């Protein structure tokens, strides 16, 4: 009820009940006991990215056809989008809320598209704003080393990369075949990192060309020499000519050396190295067969790699283990295997294979490639660090037992993927930065955390964790999917099978610009206001207005009576409720 002021002498009653003032006079905000507030939250993809990319923000920009902006968002965190866009195992898509609705957004393919587009339009890293006097040695130029070098160089440090091989790239160059990651793309990505002033010393193996003591002149050392030592098969005949490890084979193929394989090639193992070796052998004209001791379900290779291997017609023999390599004149002529059955579940959660007595069989082969696992080579490390087996122990900041010596990538105990390696390189860069400046590295890393899965954001680190994004992850149940229509996911085009066995051309062809835009627009933009206007439209008190800069909305709490319709109608969970006056 509003106060009626008497008009003239006599009370004048209008024909309908109407106020003398506008509704602004009635401050309905006094009714409120629930208070809605804009609160950008974490998208599950961001939390799940081992490289700590701000995927959500990049998707918003890609959806606005701003590839350069999306590339900048990604490369704040990961200098290798064109690499990850090709080889990442995409935990982001496994976490994507959209998969609960129809299918996950093609984040990985979009990352590739954004990276390729940005490169073609001439986008390069900006030089560091300041130069610091401290210098850091990075041992190994794989994804971990490159990531660490990039982030440290961006922060202004002098970085020297030491690489044992004649060229940079580590596993990206010598492990991953070029049909998955073309070499020219890798080189363009590396060149971009080097342009920040990173000094690269190739053919410089620490412990051989470079002495450990020489590293003492650096203010910090990052060890990322990878896992290049193959585990032995431990069967008779392993030293014969024609037996090699998967990594050795891939290294030679990827170095451009000719490898004589003969006709039949047996690859032992079910991991990604085994798949890469088999597919490379196929492309060299051999007839590969993969021998794995368990079944398809237990294979550690990623599903997509395994299915592409199968697509290409490569034979698998499951539930079989090699027992002996048959030789003739010191050269492989066959492999003897024994059949297995799966026994009870072992320590690693997988069922253990058990040999069936008398089930031996022999395959005539010319080459045996063993790819049953790899381990880091610690032989170049000083005595105290060399004692470790399997992986190098590090603390939560990536620091080893040696002062100012950090480690990452496949050198330490973490999933052996490119994106984890990139994440560990970034983590070391932050820890080194904090340590050099006498700051608490643990605190520094905590401020950079994105969620609970160990993802770290350099952008957050630089801002001390104050980027306006709440740490909580938006679950699917917080989205209002009434605003989304079901749309099938765009898939990457692939090279026809007929063209795969004769060369190392890239198999995945990526997304067209139209498909990429479609995918970017499929993104729910979980947790982050993308100015969709729904809150403004639905607010029954007109308490919501666009900010003058059009970058968000303000709630006028004089009129917000706390109905929280805005919270309900926000498609992406970017408004939260506080229960207090």
């Amino acid at each position, binding site marked *: *009820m509003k106060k009626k002021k008497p008009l003239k002498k006599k009370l004048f009653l209008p*024909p*309908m*009940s*109407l*106020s*003398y003032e506008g509704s*602004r006079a009635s401050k309905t905000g006094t009714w409120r006991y629930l208070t809605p507030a804009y609160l950008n939250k974490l998208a599950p993809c961001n939390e799940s990215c081992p490289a700590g990319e701000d995927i959500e923000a990049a998707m918003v920009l890609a959806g606005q056809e701003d590839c350069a902006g999306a590339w900048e968002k990604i490369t704040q965190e990961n200098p290798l989008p064109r690499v990850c866009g090709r080889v990442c195992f995409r935990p982001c898509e496994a976490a994507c809320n959209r998969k609960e609705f129809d299918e996950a957004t093609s984040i990985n393919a979009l990352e590739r598209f954004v990276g390729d587009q940005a490169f073609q339009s001439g986008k390069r890293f900006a030089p560091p704003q300041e130069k610091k006097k401290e210098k850091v040695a990075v041992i190994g130029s794989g994804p971990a080393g490159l990531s660490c070098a990039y982030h440290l160089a961006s922060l202004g440090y002098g970085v020297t990369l030491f690489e044992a091989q004649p060229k940079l790239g580590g596993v990206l160059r010598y492990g991953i075949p070029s049909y998955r990651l073309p070499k020219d793309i890798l080189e363009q990505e590396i060149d971009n990192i080097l342009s920040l002033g990173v000094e690269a010393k190739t053919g410089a193996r620490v412990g051989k060309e470079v002495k450990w003591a020489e590293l003492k002149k650096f203010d910090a050392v990052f060890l990322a020499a990878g896992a290049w030592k193959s585990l032995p098969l431990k069967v008779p005949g392993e030293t014969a000519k024609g037996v090699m490890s998967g990594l050795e084979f891939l290294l030679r193929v990827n170095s451009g050396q000719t490898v004589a394989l003969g006709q039949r090639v047996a690859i032992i193992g079910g991991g990604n190295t085994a798949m890469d070796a088999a597919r490379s052998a196929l492309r060299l004209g051999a007839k590969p067969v993969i021998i794995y001791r368990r079944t398809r379900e237990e294979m550690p290779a990623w599903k997509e790699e395994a299915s592409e291997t199968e697509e290409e017609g490569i034979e698998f023999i499951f539930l079989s283990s090699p027992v002996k390599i048959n030789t003739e004149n010191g050269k492989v002529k066959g492999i003897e295997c024994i059949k297995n059955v799966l026994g009870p579940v072992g320590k690693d959660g997988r069922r253990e294979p058990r040999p069936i007595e008398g089930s031996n069989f022999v395959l005539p082969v010319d080459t045996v490639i063993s790819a049953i696992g790899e381990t880091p080579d610690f032989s170049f490390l000083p005595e105290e660090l060399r004692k470790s087996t399997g992986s190098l122990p590090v603390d939560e900041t990536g620091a080893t037992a040696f002062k100012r010596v950090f480690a990452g990538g496949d050198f330490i105990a973490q999933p052996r993927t490119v994106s984890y390696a990139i994440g560990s390189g970034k983590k070391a860069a932050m820890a080194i930065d904090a340590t050099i400046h006498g700051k608490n590295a643990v605190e520094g890393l905590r401020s950079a955390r994105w969620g609970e899965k160990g993802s770290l954001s350099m952008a957050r680190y630089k801002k001390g964790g104050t980027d306006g994004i709440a740490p909580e992850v938006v679950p699917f149940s917080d989205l209002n999917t009434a605003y989304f229509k079901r749309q099938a996911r765009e898939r990457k085009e692939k090279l026809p099978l007929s063209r795969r066995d004769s060369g190392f051309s890239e198999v995945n062809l990526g997304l067209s610009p139209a498909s990429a835009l479609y995918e970017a627009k499929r993104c729910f933009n979980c947790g982050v206001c993308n100015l969709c206007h729904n809150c403004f439209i639905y607010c029954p008190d007109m308490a919501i207005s666009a900010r003058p800069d059009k970058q968000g909305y303000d709630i006028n709490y004089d009129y917000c009576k706390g109905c929280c319709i805005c919270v309900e109608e926000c498609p992406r969970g970017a408004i939260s409720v506080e229960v207090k006056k």
Partner: protein
Amino acid sequence: MRKLMTGNSAVSHGVVLSRAQVISAYPITPQTTIVEELSEMCADGRLPAKFIRVESEHSAMACVAAAAATGARVFTATSSHGLAYMHEMLHWVSGTRLPVVMVNANRAIGAPWSIWCDQGDSLSQRDTGWLQLYCQSAQEALDTVIQAYRIAEETLLPVMVLVDGFFLSHTSEPVDIPDQAAVDRFLPPFRARYKLTPDEPHTFNIMADTSLFISFRHQAQTAMEMAKKLTARVDREFKRQFGRGYGLLEKFRCTDAEVVLLTMGTAASTAREVIDQYRRQGKKVGLCRLRLFRPFPAEEFIRFLSGVKKVAVLDRDNSLGAGGIVAQELKAALYRAPRKPKVFEFIAGLGGKDITPETIQKVIDTTLRQANPNGAPLWLEVEA
């Protein structure tokens, strides 16, 4: 210009001539073709009005109410269940004193399902504060729409124009379409005294405290009383300008009539023929067609029926548990009449059942034959 057209098309033409600015409606048989034609005219530019599509009649009425509150001339149309669905909004519109004009094509309300004519749908909205004008012909429908805007905008009361579903809505007859310029002279643009505008913000319908609510209602009642005179005056003006008038009560052969048949809508045109048959037989029978049901012209009835011996009320509706609604209203009005005719009540033609000359003969014969009415209305032509 004379043109052959259906009652619904005549309504559409009336709306166009009245220069409605905002139209919102939801389709329902037998009204649909009214707004169908209007939407086409909005789409092709013949009618420069905003047509708002909605998901329900409740929203349609809410839309035109809001538009009227900003000072726009508005229109909507509905039937039966659609009208019932609007019920709440009908009260809001009249309470806000918004000059909304609506055409309702009369259709029985289910259950059981029926798309056919009776007047129960609009008569059951008699207490919502709307004027109700019942039409007999397509020409009258067109003319009444134009008149309705004048009445609505002068009284600030909403007006419902009723056309019998199918009997009028879907049958064709020659209609004289007045000139736009003539209609513009008759119906000037609407100038709202109170309207929603950002220049002068007001809240409409703020809560009226207990001391004021009754006063607002009393004002509306006073406006309704005025509306009776105004409707008659507007109709006279219309007749002066266009040569056609209808009155509040339309009388036929009533001058010396001892028995008067009272009905509403299209049944009256059938009744005209039957009345003439009785007149040829020398029976003093007349017909009265009630055009303005709300506000109910009680004084006019008292004057008119003074000296008439018997009134036969033919209701195309029924208030369950009470009887024909027109008959009830008439009896209540006659209570204060010094000389009261005997009121014979009949229910016929519900749910589209044809009211034939034979039906009307039964009404008149019964009224002539019986000295006194039965205790209850007589239902005609029902299955045992």
